C-alpha cells in the first residue's frame, strides 16, 4: 500500500464525471427501494429479486467495472502511468494499492448501499440485508481484481468487462447452468445463502466451491495484473 498512489488513484476515480456516475448508480438503487417499499410493502420475494438482480446482479459488477478499470486504465491509455512506474517502487505495490482503492469504492458505493436497500425493503428480517451486503462485499473484491487486470491487459477493458458481466453472467448463465459455476455473482450468492435464513436465497454454487474460487480469482487476478504491469511497455513510434 502506497499512500501517494492511493491518493492519486482515488482522485482520478472520484474526480470529474466518473465520481458522479459512481454516486448516481447506488442513489438510483436506494430511490427505487423506497418506491418499491412504499408501493409494494415489505415483501421477501420482491426484496430478494431487487437485491439479487439489481444490486448484486447489476450495481456491483457495474461498480467493479467502473472502479476496477478506472483505477488504472485511463493512466495507461494516456501514458501518465509512467510517473508511477519510473519510480523505485515495486509494481505489485502499485497494483495492491489500486486494488484496495477500487475495492473501497465498491464497498462505499456498492456493498453499503446494497445493505441499506435491503434494510429499506425488508428491514433486518431473516438476515437478508446483511447477507446481500456481505455478498456485495465479496463480489466487489473479485470484480475489482478482475477488472483491474482487464484494465492493465487491454485497452478495451470496459467492453470486455461489460461482455463478461452482461453476456456471460446474465444471458449465458440463465441458459447454460454450467456457466454459473464460473460466475462471481453466483459465488457471492453462495455466501449470501449461508448468511441469510435457510431457503431465502438460492445459489447455483455451493459454499465450499464458491469461497476458494472467490479467493483464488481475486488473488490470481491481482498477481497477474502486477506481473503484467512490471512488463508494461510504452508504445513509441512504430
Amino acid at each position, binding site marked *: 500500500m*502506497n*499512500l*501517494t*498512489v492511493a*491518493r*492519486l488513484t482515488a*482522485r*482520478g476515480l472520484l*474526480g*470529474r464525471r466518473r465520481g458522479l456516475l459512481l454516486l448516481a448508480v447506488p442513489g438510483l438503487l436506494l430511490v427505487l427501494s423506497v418506491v418499491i417499499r412504499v408501493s409494494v410493502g415489505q415483501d421477501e420475494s420482491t426484496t430478494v429479486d431487487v437485491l439479487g438482480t439489481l444490486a448484486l446482479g447489476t450495481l456491483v459488477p457495474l461498480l467493479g467495472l467502473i472502479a476496477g478499470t478506472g483505477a488504472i486504465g485511463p493512466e495507461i491509455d*494516456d*501514458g*501518465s502511468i*509512467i*510517473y*508511477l*512506474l*519510473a*519510480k*523505485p*517502487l*515495486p*509494481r505489485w505495490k502499485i497494483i495492491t494499492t489500486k486494488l484496495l482503492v477500487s475495492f473501497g469504492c465498491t464497498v462505499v458505493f456498492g456493498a453499503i448501499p446494497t445493505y441499506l436497500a435491503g434494510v429499506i425493503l425488508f428491514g433486518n428480517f431473516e438476515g437478508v440485508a446483511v447477507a446481500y451486503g456481505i455478498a456485495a462485499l465479496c463480489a466487489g473484491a473479485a470484480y475489482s481484481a478482475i477488472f483491474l487486470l482487464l484494465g492493465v491487459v487491454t485497452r478495451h477493458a470496459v467492453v470486455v468487462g461489460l461482455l463478461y458481466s452482461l453476456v456471460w453472467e446474465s444471458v449465458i448463465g440463465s441458459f447454460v447452468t454450467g456457466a454459473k459455476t464460473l460466475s462471481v455473482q453466483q459465488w457471492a450468492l453462495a455466501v449470501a445463502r449461508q448468511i441469510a435464513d435457510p431457503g431465502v436465497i438460492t445459489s447455483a454454487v455451493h459454499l465450499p466451491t464458491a469461497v476458494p474460487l472467490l479467493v483464488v480469482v481475486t488473488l490470481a487476478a491481482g498477481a497477474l495484473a502486477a506481473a503484467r504491469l*512490471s*512488463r*508494461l*511497455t*510504452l508504445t*513509441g*513510434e*512504430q
Partner: protein
Amino acid sequence: MTTISIDRVSRWFGNVVAVNDISMQIGPGVTGLLGPNGAGKSTLIHMMSGFLPPSTGRVDIDGVPVWKNQQAYRQIGLVPEREAMYDFLTGHEFVLANAELHGLPDPGAAARRALATVEMEYAQDRKVTTYSKGMKQRVKMASALVHEPSVLMLDEPFNGMDPRQRMHLMELLRRFGAEGRTVLFSSHILEEVEQLARHIEVVVAGRHAASGDFHKIRRLMTSRPHQYLVRSSDDRALAAALIADTSTAGIEFDPREQALRIQAVDFYRFAELVPRVAKEAGIRLLTVSPQDESLESVFSYLVTSA
C-alpha cells in the same frame, strides 16, 4: 558519474525493425540524440529508461540492465514526450507526488527545490490543465529532477516551447551536464542539438548513422553539401560560370559581404571546378572559404545517404 551503455541492441515490433543493431555509450555531459521522426529515437529512450525490453542486445546503466529493474529509477530522471500528467493536480501537488513516490526523506523541500530550478513557483498552485505546453514541460522537468538523478533523459523536450522557454531549458541542461550528470535528449530539430550538445548520436531509419563530436562527424563526410563564401575580381561572371556545372546547387550574391554564397553538392568536383573556371574566365579568386558549420547539412546528408 553514470554511463548508459547500449550494446548491439535491436528492437522490432512484428515485422517492423525500429532499432537495428545499435551500440553506443552515453557518458556524463549533454548528448543529443538526433534523427528524423520515426528514426527510432523514442524506442531507444524507452529501452534506456526501462519501458521496453530490447529484442536483442543489452541496455545497461553502469553495468546493470535497466529492464525490469525498478531500482534503476533512483538514478534516472525521465521527461517523457507525451503530455499526459495527472491533470487534476496542481503543479506543486504533481511534483510533490513524484517526490513522495521516490520515497525521499523530505519530499516537500525536494519539490520546492525542483520547482524553483525550473522557475515554476509562480504557477505552482494552478491546475496542470491550465498550463501552456512550455509550462507543462517545465513541470515534467521538475518531476524528473526532484530526486536529483545522475541520468536525465528527455524525449523531444523542446517541442512546443517558445524561444525564451527553450533557452531557459537549454541553460538548465547545460548546467546539469557541467555538473557531471549524464544528460540525453532527443530531437529532430537540428538547431536544438547544435546549440546544446557537443556530442551527438545520429539515428536514421533505426540505424546508428553517426556518433561523436559534431565537428568530427562533419569532417568525416566530404561529399556532403557544402556552403562556400567566395570573393573574386568578378563575382557575377564567376557565378554564371559555376552555376552551369552540376556540382553547384545554388549561388547567391551577398551584398553585405560583397561575396558569393555557393552551395556545392559534389565536394571533389567543386574543388576542381572553381580554380579551373576562374582561370578560363580570367577571374582572380580572392577568398574561398567553407562557411557551413550547421548541423542541417550533416543531417540531410545522413538522411539521404542512409
